[in-house]
C-alpha cells in the first residue's frame, strides 16, 4: 500500500484522508490505530511505538483514541447504552450509574436515546455507526479516526454528524482524520492527505 513513507500528524490537525476507492484509506486508518502493522517500519503514537505483541499502549490505555469504523464495531451482545458506557467505566473509571447517565446524554445528542436498550444487530447500519460516534464522543478522546458508514448518511443524519463533530472536535488540541468517501459531511476539513500509488501527499483545499 505505502512504500518509503514518513509522515507526522500534528496535534490538533483536522484532515481528510483522500484516495481512490480500494487504495487503502480504511487500512491507513487501521494502521494509525495499531489494528494492523506495517511489514517494515513503525507507527508511533505520542512517541511510543505500536507493537503487534503487546496488548496495551499508554495512549490507548488512557482512552486517547476515538475509533469509528464503517460498521460501528459495537459489541453485539450488549445494548447500545452499555456499548457507549463501557469505555467510560473501564477506561475513565466512572461508576456504572454515572457512565450510563453520560452515555444517555450523548445518545440523546445524536438522536438515538430511544434505541438505548436495543442491541446493535437490531439497528440499521447508519444508526450503529452513529452509536459508535456517540461512544467516541462520550469517551473524550484526543485523536479521532473516522471512517464513514457504508451506504452514506441521510441528509438529517449528515447534519447531526456534522454538528456533533464540530462540537467535539472544535477543540484545538483534538486531532481528526476522516476518510473522504463521497460527500458525507456538509463541511469537511480543508486540509487533506492523499494516498496514491504507494505514496502520501498532503495539501489544503482553498
Amino acid at each position, binding site marked *: 500500500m505505502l512504500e518509503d513513507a514518513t509522515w507526522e500528524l500534528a496535534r490538533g490537525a483536522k484532515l481528510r484522508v483522500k484516495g481512490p476507492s480500494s487504495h487503502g484509506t480504511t487500512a491507513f486508518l487501521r494502521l494509525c490505530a495499531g489494528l494492523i502493522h506495517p511489514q517494515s517500519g513503525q507507527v508511533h503514537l505520542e512517541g511510543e511505538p505500536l507493537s503487534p505483541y503487546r496488548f496495551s499502549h499508554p495512549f490507548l490505555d488512557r482512552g486517547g483514541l476515538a*475509533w469509528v469504523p464503517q460498521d460501528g464495531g459495537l459489541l453485539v451482545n450488549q445494548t447500545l447504552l452499555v456499548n457507549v458506557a463501557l469505555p467510560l467505566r473501564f*477506561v475513565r473509571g*466512572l461508576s456504572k450509574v454515572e457512565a450510563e447517565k453520560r452515555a444517555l446524554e450523548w445518545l440523546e445528542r445524536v438522536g438515538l436515546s430511544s434505541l438505548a436498550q436495543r442491541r446493535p444487530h437490531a439497528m440499521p447500519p447508519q444508526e450503529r455507526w452513529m452509536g459508535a460516534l456517540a461512544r467516541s464522543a462520550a469517551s473524550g478522546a484526543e485523536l479521532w479516526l473516522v471512517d464513514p458508514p457504508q451506504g452514506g448518511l441521510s441528509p438529517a443524519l449528515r447534519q447531526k454528524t456534522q454538528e456533533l463533530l464540530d462540537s467535539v472536535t472544535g477543540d484545538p488540541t483534538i486531532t481528526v482524520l476522516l476518510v473522504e468517501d463521497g460527500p458525507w459531511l456538509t463541511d469537511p476539513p480543508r486540509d487533506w492527505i492523499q494516498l496514491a500509488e504507494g505514496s502520501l501527499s498532503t495539501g489544503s483545499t482553498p
Partner: protein
Amino acid sequence: MSSLEVSLDGAFWRFSARLGVGVRRSLGRLGAISWILYQCFWHGLRLRWHQLGVVLEVTRTQIRFTALDALSLTCFTAFLMGGITLLQVFGQLSAFGAETYLSRLLAKLVIRELGPLMVAIIVIGRSGTAIAAEMASMKLSGEVDSLWASGMNPVQYLLIPRLLGGIVSIFTLIVFFGAVALLGGFFLAWLWLPLSWRAFLDSLGKVIGSRELAITLVKSMLFGTFIPLICAYCGLRVQASPTEIPQAVTKAAVYSLVVVLVGGAVVSVMLYG
C-alpha cells in the same frame, strides 16, 4: 553421486520435512497458548479497581452460561452414569462376595476420573464451542478491534472473565456431578439391589478425603484454564471469512478434548500413580 542416490536423498528430506511440519505446528500452538496464558496472568495483575468490577460482571455472566445453565444436564448425566456404574460394579463385585468395596470403588471411579472427565466434555460441548464461535464472530465483525482501539484491553475484558468463569464453573459442576452420581446412583441401584444406605454412606465417608478434594481442585484449575483459553485462541485465529468459524469451533473442541484427556491422565498418574 548417482541420480538414484540424489532422488532418495531428496525423498528422505521431504519426508522428514513433512514430519517436522506437524511437530512444528503443534509446538507453535502450544507456544501461542502458553503466551496467551502468560498475557492473562500479566494483564490480570495490572487490572485496576474500577476495571475489576466490569471484569467480575462479565465473569458472572460466564458462570451463569457455563455452570448454572449446564447444571440440569450435568445432574442428569451424573444420575445416569452413577446408577449404571453402580449396577455394573455391583454385578462384578457380588460374584466375588466383595460388595463392601462397592462405595470405595465407586467413589474412586466417579470422583477421581469420571466426574472431571464428563464435566469437561459437557463444558467443551456447551461452552467451549460457544466461546470459540463468539470470539471468531467478534474478530470478524471488528468488535475486538474496537475494544482495543477504545482502550479496553481485550485480554482483560474478553479472556480473563472466561478463564475465571471456566475455573469456578468446572469446579462447581464437578462437585455437583460427584454428589449426584454417588447419591443418585445409589438411589437408582437401591431400587433393585439389597444395599444398606447407612453402610454405603459410612463407607463413602472413609474413602472421600482431602486427596479427593485436591484432585478436584487441580483438575478444575487445569480444565477451567485450558478449555476457555484454547477455545478463545482458536476463535481469535480466524482471519477474514465466516466460513472459518465452523473450522475454528471444530479445532477448539478437538484440541480441548486432547488437552483434557492427556492432562487428566497426567494429573491422575502424578497424584495416584
